[in-house]
């Protein structure tokens, strides 16, 4: 994770961001600390923190730094120049932490775990708004795993982790309308139990959740229906208010990058 010391809305690169709707810095820091303590204290997660840096406000959204596999990180090639500035910071941090840093073909964009989520042994890869389809072949080669590219079709859900959240090997939350009919068919075939998320819940970033065992850390305000459907599949929602981060189009999942625990 990365503390939101310098987090602010400095530009508009997705439909959620507006320079007119500024972040309450103190509140953002408080919300972040609550998420941090929920993860570390209640759920027993070991968290490492990337030192924040002035001038790269979106560094808090560490999910987009890259994709970690073992002791290797496949570093992102950010689509927007505003976020490209994060690349050297990420690179330095991971190198210093003893990771091998792999670069992808610079011709194509890739925004890390924001667009790449594991469902058991298969990596689902979202493309169109941020990451680009051809990169999936390189990912497949590097990882030696099946990588299934699915196209995102709703600008509001610009990253895969805003509309799809694998909870375990055969369960996932999803907002089906964020995919086209091909993507829907691919996910339906891949995931035996897909939990539909309503548009209202999706717009509250319910899919941008962090699964930890049977616990799912997600934005507060999820509908009772969704929580019921989740508990029916024996998952427990842990609500946390991250409203200040919603202003930048991110929530719980965007604020963390998994360093271990993948196939």
């Amino acid at each position: 994770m990365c503390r939101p010391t310098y987090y602010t809305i400095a530009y508009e690169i997705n439909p959620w961001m507006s320079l007119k709707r500024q972040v309450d810095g103190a509140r953002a820091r408080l919300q972040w600390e609550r998420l941090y303590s929920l993860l570390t204290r209640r759920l027993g997660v070991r968290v490492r923190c990337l030192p924040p840096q002035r001038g790269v406000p979106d560094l808090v959204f560490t999910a987009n730094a890259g994709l970690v596999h073992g002791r290797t990180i496949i570093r992102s090639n950010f689509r927007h120049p505003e976020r490209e500035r994060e690349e050297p910071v990420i690179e330095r941090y991971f190198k210093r932490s003893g990771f091998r840093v792999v670069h992808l073909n610079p011709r194509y964009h890739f925004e890390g775990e924001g667009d790449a989520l594991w469902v058991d042994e298969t990596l689902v890869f979202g493309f169109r708004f941020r990451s680009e389809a051809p990169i999936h072949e390189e990912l497949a080669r590097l990882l030696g795993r099946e990588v299934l590219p699915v196209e995102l079709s709703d600008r509001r859900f610009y990253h895969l982790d805003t509309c799809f959240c694998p909870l375990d090997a055969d369960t996932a939350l999803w907002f089906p309308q964020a995919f086209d009919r091909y993507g829907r068919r691919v996910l339906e075939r891949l995931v035996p139990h897909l939990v539909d998320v309503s548009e209202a819940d999706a717009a509250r970033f319910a899919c941008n959740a962090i699964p930890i065992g049977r616990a799912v850390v997600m934005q507060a305000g999820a509908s009772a229906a969704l929580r019921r459907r989740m508990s029916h599949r024996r998952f427990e929602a842990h609500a946390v208010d991250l409203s200040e981060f919603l202003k930048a189009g991110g929530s719980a999942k965007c604020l963390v990058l998994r360093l271990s625990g993948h196939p």
Partner: protein
Amino acid sequence: MSGPAKHPPDWDPLPWYTGAMPSEIVQVRGHIIDSLILPKVLDEIMDLNGTFEILDVAIGKRKTDTSMARLRVQAESARRLEQILKRIARLGAAPLHLHDVRLARAPKEGVFPAAFYSTTNLPTEIRFRGRWRKVRRIEMDCGIVVQPDTGQARCAPLAGVRKGQWVVCGAEGVKVTPLERTRQPEVFQFMGSAVSSEKPKLQLIQRLAAEMRAIRRAGQKILVVAGPAVVHTGSGPHLERLIRGGFVQILFAGNGLATHDIESALYGTSLGVRLDRGVAVKDGHDHHMRAINTIRALGGIRRAVRRGVLKRGIMHACVARGVPFVLSGSIRDDGPLPDVITDTLKAQEAMRRHVEGTGLSLMLASTLHAIATGNLLPATVKTVCVDINPAVVTKLADRGTFQGIGIVSDTESFLRELTRALHL
């Protein structure tokens, strides 16, 4: 005036190969099967009214293996193709030819560099300095010479390449567009095979006549290649009418056709057989030698016409109408006539000079000259091969002139019907 032939709306064309549609070869790789990326690419091409041909698919054996597909994408216009390519690029389907052609200098006069690209007779483009450029005067079994300063590319026969010229090597950056038969189901049915003696010829000839008129209206040329059997079968006067009627713009033949035509003009015989009565004339076997000798004495066919010695026949009609002819020699020629070009390479060059702007080529009872002409023609030139022997048409196709439509018929009855259909 020049351009594609315009047809009335109810036009029922012969199954020609039509002009090539703009196309591009794209490749898509990765986990394209389970992710439905490949079906999606194909659907998007069709949604934009494009067509595709799957050239190559390699499907991974294990789940983790990636797959690859190569497609030829075609659209009715370059703009539409551009649109399709843009759409499918998003899915990772990228044009295969992202690089320029490789060029190497010709090491000697008449010698291509070892890795030279050997041409087909199909419309061909090369990518040079990032732009696609049409190869001019496309012809099969040649090389492509590129002018590096202008980027101009043209076909060059082996014997025609100069030392130091830049020649395309390898297939990278070379795009060949295949042609398609016109999409007319009934025509397909009844022209199911390229060559057959079982076809209603009159109907074919009617449609050929209409096509010839359209070609002429469009300002394109009609090329006739004729063998000596045209004269032997007594169909010389029909061909003469065709020439006088303005339906022949170039004539390719050999020493034989011209000789027997002149023999018939001077003696009324062809190989000593009277054309009006079909009987052999006493001592007629030497008529053709006397005919050749007469023309040689006068210094050529044109002079013989000017002096009033040659007053009728095919060659006379050509001279009278100002239709150029190229007579190419061969090893078994008698004489030959002074107009015959005996240097094969020079004859090829003379033929090459004349084929430009040809819209239709009519090959009549000739094997040798039909194949030689077929070799020089781009596949876009509509070609009709008329012969009593089906093997001739097959042979023409086997030598690469696949665009030919075969009509198995005696030349005399074919030409008689054709001139009638053209109201000559």
